[in-house]
């Protein structure tokens, strides 16, 4: 049976399945869905999709939802002071914490379709909520699963840290099986209150046939801090849209990401560091190592509003090309409207240094191992920021596993 997200019957069936939800949630879904069905046809020339083979991100082969989708699995949720619950459970038990959903806008970096679909059909994800001053040493861990057999899964994650709370969050993205196609659309809303701090690690190991949409918006109030480390390893194609809004003075936004591209993998990354308040800091580093016929697109923007004086903002994109057919496209952008700022961006693309390779080979290391070592070294300044040595070692292994020996 062919189904379409745009068909009213399809939405009707979905609504009936979720008739247990409160009325405002049903209204929100309905509103989002009607906005989705009225979306104009995508423009041929959209700067937000420049260099991207957009058709690869289409939902067309996977326009169906599982009857009972595999839910996000939460680990270590026995903390008394923090609410850490699945999306469905949160709707029932903490509707007040989700009631801001209809007012959230997402990253707005091109994926209007995914954002509205996610708002209409989300049935997985999690809620993470920490009260004022709550500090937890142990990480909150969750496992997300991309669906199998030509299905799509939409999920929303709502992370709210009250002032001076400090948490660590680790998110794994995997597939239900290794051999079939699926689409996972993950939409995160993160809000950090004054002085709050969130460390997050993302490890994406979805199977090599599936599509991954990863949209997130991070809002930072005064003196708050967000540190992110993403390992994008799996999937056939991944679209990342990440927005960090510095809303309060002195907030700090650090966004580090690495991608390892093999075969025909595509990593399409769009980011913005938006400084709205003064004295903010942001630092972004995206590194892509590309083998075979893989491709990366990095499009980043630093935007500094006229009021955001004394901003320090940096953006770096480094691409390592390991084969003739690999391709790296880079669109590093700046829009600066304040003058008391320190802003810079840099983008480089190059191959492995022949001398480094020769040195390793002359010590008896085979070429493929030497390349692997150099790539691991290339990623080290991202992985090395992950905090304690156990975490760092496990992240190294994650990357290492992706090299065929």
């Amino acid at each position, binding site marked *: 049976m062919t189904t379409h997200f745009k068909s009213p019957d399809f939405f009707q069936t979905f609504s009936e399945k979720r008739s247990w939800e409160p009325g405002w949630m049903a209204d929100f879904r309905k509103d989002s869905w009607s906005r989705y069905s009225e979306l104009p046809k995508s*423009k041929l*020339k*959209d*700067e937000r999709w*420049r*260099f991207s083979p957009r058709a690869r991100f289409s939902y067309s082969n996977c326009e169906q939802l599982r009857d009972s989708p595999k839910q996000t699995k939460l680990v270590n949720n026995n903390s008394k002071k923090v609410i850490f619950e699945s999306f469905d459970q949160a709707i029932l038990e903490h509707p007040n914490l989700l009631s801001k959903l209809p007012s959230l806008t997402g990253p707005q970096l091109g994926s209007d379709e995914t954002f509205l679909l996610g708002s209409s059909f989300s049935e997985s994800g999690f809620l993470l909520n920490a009260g004022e001053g709550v500090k937890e040493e142990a990480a909150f861990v969750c496992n997300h699963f991309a669906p199998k057999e030509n299905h799509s899964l939409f999920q929303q994650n709502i992370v709210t840290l009250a002032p001076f709370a400090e948490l660590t969050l680790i998110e794994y993205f995997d597939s239900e099986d290794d051999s079939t196609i699926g689409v996972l659309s993950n939409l995160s809303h993160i809000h950090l209150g004054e002085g709050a701090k969130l460390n997050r690690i993302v490890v994406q190991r979805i199977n090599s046939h599936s599509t991954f949409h990863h949209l997130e918006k991070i809002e930072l109030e005064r003196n708050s801090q967000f540190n992110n480390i993403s390992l994008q390893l799996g999937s056939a194609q991944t679209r990342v849209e990440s927005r960090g809004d510095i809303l309060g003075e002195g907030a700090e936004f650090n966004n580090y990401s690495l991608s390892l591209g093999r075969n025909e993998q595509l990593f399409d990354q769009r980011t913005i560091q938006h400084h709205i308040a003064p004295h903010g800091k942001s630092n972004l580093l995206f590194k892509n190592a590309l083998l075979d016929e893989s491709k990366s697109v990095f499009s980043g923007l630093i935007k500094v509003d*006229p009021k955001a*004086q004394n901003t320090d903002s940096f953006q770096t994109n480094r*691409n390592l*090309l*390991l*084969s*003739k*057919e*690999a*391709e*790296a*496209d*880079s*669109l*590093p*952008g*700046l*829009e*600066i*409207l*304040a*003058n*008391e*700022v*320190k*802003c*810079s*961006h*840099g*983008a*480089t*693309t*190059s*191959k*492995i240094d022949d001398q480094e390779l020769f040195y390793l080979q002359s010590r008896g290391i085979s070429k493929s191992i030497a390349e692997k070592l150099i790539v691991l070294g290339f990623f080290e300044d991202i992985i090395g920021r992950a905090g304690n040595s156990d975490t760092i070692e496990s992240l190294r292994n994650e990357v290492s596993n992706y090299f065929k020996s």
Partner: protein
Amino acid sequence: MIKPSNIEIDREKGNFHYPTSKYAFDAGVGLSEDVVKYISGVKKEKDWILDFRLKAYSIFKKKPMPTHWASKDLENIDFDVIRYYLAQGQQPSRTWEEVPDDIKKTFERLGIPEQERKFLAGVEAQFDSEAAYSRMKEGLEKEGVIFVGSTEGLRDYPEIFKKWFGKVIPTSDNKFSALNSAVFSGGSFIYVPPGVKLSQPLQAYFRINAENFGQFERTLIIADEGAEITYMEGCTAPKFETSTLHSAVVELVALKGAKIQYITVQNWSNNVFNLVTKRAMAHEEAEVRWIDCNIGSRLTMKYPGVILKGRKARGEVLSIALANDGQHQDTGAKMVHAASETTSNVIAKSVSIGQGRSSYRGLVQIPGHLKHCKNNTECDALLINSDSQTDTYPAISIQGDDNSVQHEASVSKVSAEQIFYMQQRGLNQAEAMSLYVNGFVNDLIREFPMEYSVELKRLIDMEMEGSVG
């Protein structure tokens, strides 16, 4: 003698008033097929040129404005109130008295000789140095250099120019190149024979033409094998211009081992939309260098490019932009690598003063089958006031495991410490600021011929006036 009347230098948006009573040929207001035919007819052009123009006109009509990435200010251009062709039957057609006082004052302060001032203001097309010019022209002819206007070039030397005309920049490249292709007039067509190395730069305003440099000039420079040429257009004094849209197309062809250096100093009055397409094709071991300085205009959109077509070709763009109140300098560079071992270098410096906005937009492309290609791009922006704006939008597309590119951009403001240091040595704040800005662009200004760099420095001094305190 034509009676002088007041010419308005109109700095208001949307006012396209144009004094036209004194032109012998006038294509009227607005653009249509008839206007294109009229222009071609006045120039007594061959059929293939008319066909070229008409085809371009139909492309122009079809192409949308590039507002999906470019400034929305483009929407303020009203193509129906622009005059596309005006030629003066006799000269001079304007008198010195008509030139506005502020422009005269600028000439004076820049120290431009009296006679040259009149020429620069568009009052006279010739001046007393004609003798010197003639000698120079004679010398050029002896070497076999062809240096003529676009009409003469296509009429008298089709065997040389037809081959490359419209080939580096196809008509359909963008809306404004199509517009230019439909209505072009004026400009320079230059051919330098193999092995000829011109020691003196050729300057656009030395060429005496029956027609003034128009709004839609067309330039084509061909440097044959091993030839070398430096071409300079524009001048450091403000171009006294009543038109509001300037849209030129400049094509350069550097054949094997040739070197072309193209220098522009753009200082239009700031009611002008300056939308220019410039591109060069560099063959084997050729070198093309664009030196581009933008100080005037309301909106400039200009991205000089080099297609590196032959092995070991080299392209370079050095760009300086100064944006003051009400100005948007949207400039940059395009480097398209199409052969192995090609290298390119882009250095762009911009200064935003008051509410000025300067943008860098660039493109670097290296496909995977090439070996040993390199690109280096550096963009530095300086912000003077708290409401100044700067943007950087590079696009870098690289394939293959044997090429390397690096791009870096930084934004900074004037260092208070350095200003303080200069002030305590007795400079006032404005002088210190001026010195600072001159220092910021100094390494690029050094690339200009000496007399230009002196005038440029003075010009920067003048732009900086009143920007502080």
